[in-house]
C-alpha cells in the first residue's frame, strides 16, 4: 500500500510517500520521520528566536560557541561545499538575505564587508563555532531541507522500509527504492505553469532543484544570493544536483545556480543539470536519470 503523510516545517510543506505492507508501520515510520524534520526546523531555523542556530548567531561574534556533533558535522559539510564551489555556496549569507528583504529588518552591521564564511571559524578539536566579523550570520536555508530529509530517510530506512519518496517543498527530494513495478520514482521538473519540461527517474538518490525565481522578496529580489557579488544570483534559471545526500544536493544546486555551470571542482559522484533559458546542460553522471519532456512517457506518483 501507499501512505502519504505531510507536515509544515521550514516555511514549506514536507510530504512523505511511503510504500510497503502494514499501515501501522508505515504511519509510525512516517510520523517519526516528520518529527525528525520538525526537530531540525526547531534547531536550524533563523526564524525561531529559540533555535540553536539563532543562539549561535547571537553569540558567536563574542565568543566560541560549543555545538553538538551533528551541527558541527553539518557546518563542516557546508565548509566543504563553500571551498569546492569557490564561495558560490556560502551558508554565512544571513546578512545578505536581510539586506535584500528575505529575512527580518537589516542590522547595522549587515552593510559591512567581511561577513561571509571566510569569517566563520570552526574549531575541529573543541567543536566550536566563532565569527571573526560582527556582520556574520549563518543562514542554512540552502541546505536545511535536504539535511532534514537525510534525517527522515535514515529513520524510514532504519525500520526496514524499502520504497519511499520524501520531499520538502517539491524542491528537495530523497528517493528510497522504487514504487511497486516501477524502475524509480518519476518527478517532473518545472511544470508549475504548464507541462513539465523534463523528468527525473529517481532510485536511492537525493535531488535538489534551485531556481532564483522560486521565491522573491517584496522588492522582487530573488532568494538565492551570489555571495561573491552581494547581489541576487542571475547566471542560470534553474539547476539540479543529484547525489547520495540531501544536504549535499541542496548545497550544490544553490552553488550551480550561482555559477551558472558545473565547476571542475564539483565531486564527480554528484550529477548536475543547469538550465539557462530553455537549454539544459546535463552532466554525464546524470544522463540516465534526466529525461527531457519528449523522451519518455510521463507518469508520476
Amino acid at each position: 500500500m501507499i501512505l502519504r503523510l505531510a507536515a509544515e516545517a521550514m516555511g514549506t510543506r514536507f510530504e512523505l510517500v511511503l510504500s510497503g505492507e502494514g499501515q501501522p508501520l508505515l504511519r509510525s515510520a512516517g510520523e517519526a520521520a516528520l518529527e525528525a524534520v520538525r526537530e531540525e526546523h526547531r534547531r536550524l531555523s533563523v526564524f525561531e528566536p529559540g533555535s540553536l542556530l539563532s543562539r549561535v548567531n547571537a553569540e558567536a561574534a563574542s565568543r566560541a560557541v560549543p555545538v553538538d556533533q551533528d551541527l558541527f558535522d553539518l557546518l563542516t559539510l557546508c565548509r566543504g561545499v563553500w571551498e569546492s564551489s569557490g564561495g558560490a555556496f556560502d551558508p554565512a549569507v544571513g546578512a545578505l538575505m536581510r539586506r535584500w528583504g528575505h529575512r527580518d529588518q537589516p542590522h547595522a552591521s549587515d552593510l559591512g564587508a567581511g561577513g561571509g564564511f571566510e569569517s566563520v571559524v570552526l574549531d575541529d578539536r573543541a567543536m566550536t563555532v566563532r565569527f571573526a566579523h560582527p556582520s556574520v550570520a549563518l543562514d542554512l536555508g540552502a541546505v536545511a531541507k535536504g539535511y532534514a530529509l537525510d534525517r527522515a530517510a535514515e529513520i524510514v530506512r532504519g525500520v526496514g522500509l524499502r520504497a519511499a519518496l520524501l520531499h520538502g517543498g517539491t524542491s528537495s527530494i530523497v528517493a528510497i527504492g522504487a514504487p511497486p513495478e516501477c524502475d524509480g520514482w518519476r518527478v517532473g521538473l518545472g511544470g508549475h505553469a504548464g507541462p513539465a519540461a523534463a523528468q527525473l527517474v529517481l532510485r536511492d538518490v537525493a535531488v535538489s532543484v534551485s531556481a532564483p525565481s522560486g521565491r522573491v522578496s517584496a522588492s522582487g529580489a530573488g532568494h538565492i544570493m551570489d555571495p561573491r557579488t552581494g547581489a541576487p544570483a542571475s547566471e542560470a534559471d534553474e539547476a539540479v544536483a543529484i547525489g547520495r545526500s540531501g544536504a549535499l544536493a541542496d548545497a550544490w544546486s544553490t552553488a550551480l545556480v550561482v555559477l551558472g555551470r558545473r565547476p571542475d571542482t564539483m565531486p564527480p559522484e554528484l550529477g548536475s543539470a543547469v538550465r539557462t533559458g530553455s537549454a539544459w546542460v546535463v552532466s554525464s553522471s546524470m544522463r540516465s536519470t534526466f529525461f527531457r519532456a519528449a523522451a519518455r512517457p510521463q507518469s508520476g506518483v
Partner: protein
Amino acid sequence: MGQAAAAAMGMTLLPSAVAAFDFSRAPARIGVIGLGRQGRDILGELAKFEGVEVTAVCDVDAKRLEAGVRRTRAAEGFASHQAMLAKASLFDAVCIATPTHVHRQVAEDAIAAGTHVYCEAPLAHTVEDAAAIALAARGSGKVFQAGLDARSNPVYTLARSFFRSDAVRDLVGVHAQHHRKTSWRFPASDPSREAEMNWRLDPAVSLGLAGEWGTHQFDTVHWFTGRYPKSVRGVGSIRLHDDGREVADTIACQLVYENGAVMMYDATLANSYGGRFETLFGTNAAIKLAETHAWMFKEADAPTQGWEVYANRQQFHNDEGITLIAGATKLANQGKLREGVGLPNPPLYYALGDFLKSVTEGADVACSAEEGYRSTVVGIRAAEAVASGEEVQIAESDLRVG
C-alpha cells in the same frame, strides 16, 4: 504620556523580565536517561544553556543511543541506566525521560547514586510507585524536580498572578484539551522491541491520554487554584487508529472539585484542531493558557485598569484577548513590547532552567516530588475512570505521601 511609558507604568506590578539562564559561572554536567522523543527534546533544550554540558546519555535502544550521543559534544553513551549511574562522577544531575512505568526503578537508583534528579511526569503509572519516588526524593538531600513544566512557564506565572488577583474573580469552571493527530505508535528498528517501544499502547502499563497528557494539564489547574478534584469520570474510544489497540485514542474527562467547579478535559490523537490549552473561566475574566502564549478575556462589566488601554490584544472571532506578555516591563522600556508576544523557547526550556538553578544555586524547586506525586495521582485516577467508565473518587488521603 507616551504609549510605551503608559504601558510600562501599567505593567510595573507584573513579574520581572523573562529569566535568561547562564550557568557559565556555575557549570553543570548532566546525564540524560531515555532518548526517545522527550529525551531528545531535553537534549535540544540543554544545548541552549551556557555552562551546561551533557556528559552522559543512556538508552536501551542502540540506534537511539547512537543518535543521542551525536546530539551532544562528546557524551559517554550507556546501554543501561545502572551502567551510567555506576559512573555518577561524570555528572551532577540526571534527567529521566524513560517510559513512565520504569521511572521508579531509574529514579530510586539515581537518588541512591547521590545525584540530583529531574523526572518527567507523570512520575509513575501506579500510586504505589509514585509514592515510592516521592519518599525517596524526600529523604535524599538532593534536588528532585518533577517535570510539570507549567510551574516554570513565565507566561503561566504571569497569568497566575492575574488569576490570584481580583482580575478573574471567582472560578466558574475549566476547559482543557490536548488535540494532536498522531498515531502515538513508534517504529522499532529491531522488531523484537516493538512492544517495548509502544508501551503507551499497552493497557497493562499505560495511563493513556488521561495520564500521560492530562497529568500535566491537571497540574496547571492545581497550581492556579490550589485545589485538587474530589472525583473524576471519563470515557474513551477509538476514533481513528483502529489498528488493534485497546488504549483509547480519544478521551473525555470530567473532574469535579469540592466547591462545585468542574474541569472538562478532552484529548485526542485523531484531530489537531486547537492544540493544547487550558482555559480557566472566572466571573470577571477568563484566562487561556497555550504553552508559549496566554491571554485574558475580560467580561464587559469587569473593572478596567489603566494599563489595559495600551495592552497588546488579539481577536478570536467574537472574543478579544489581552495578550499576557512575560517580562512586559522590560520590553516596554526597550520599546519591544510587540516582540514579547509568545515565549521564544518551549516550556521545557524554562523547566530545565529552573532545575539547573536549583542544582547550581540552591534555588527553590519549581515542582517538588510531592507536588508531582499529587498531580500524578489525579492522572492515574482519571486514567482509571476512562478505562472503567465509572466515577472514581479522589480522597484527600490519596494525595498525601507517607
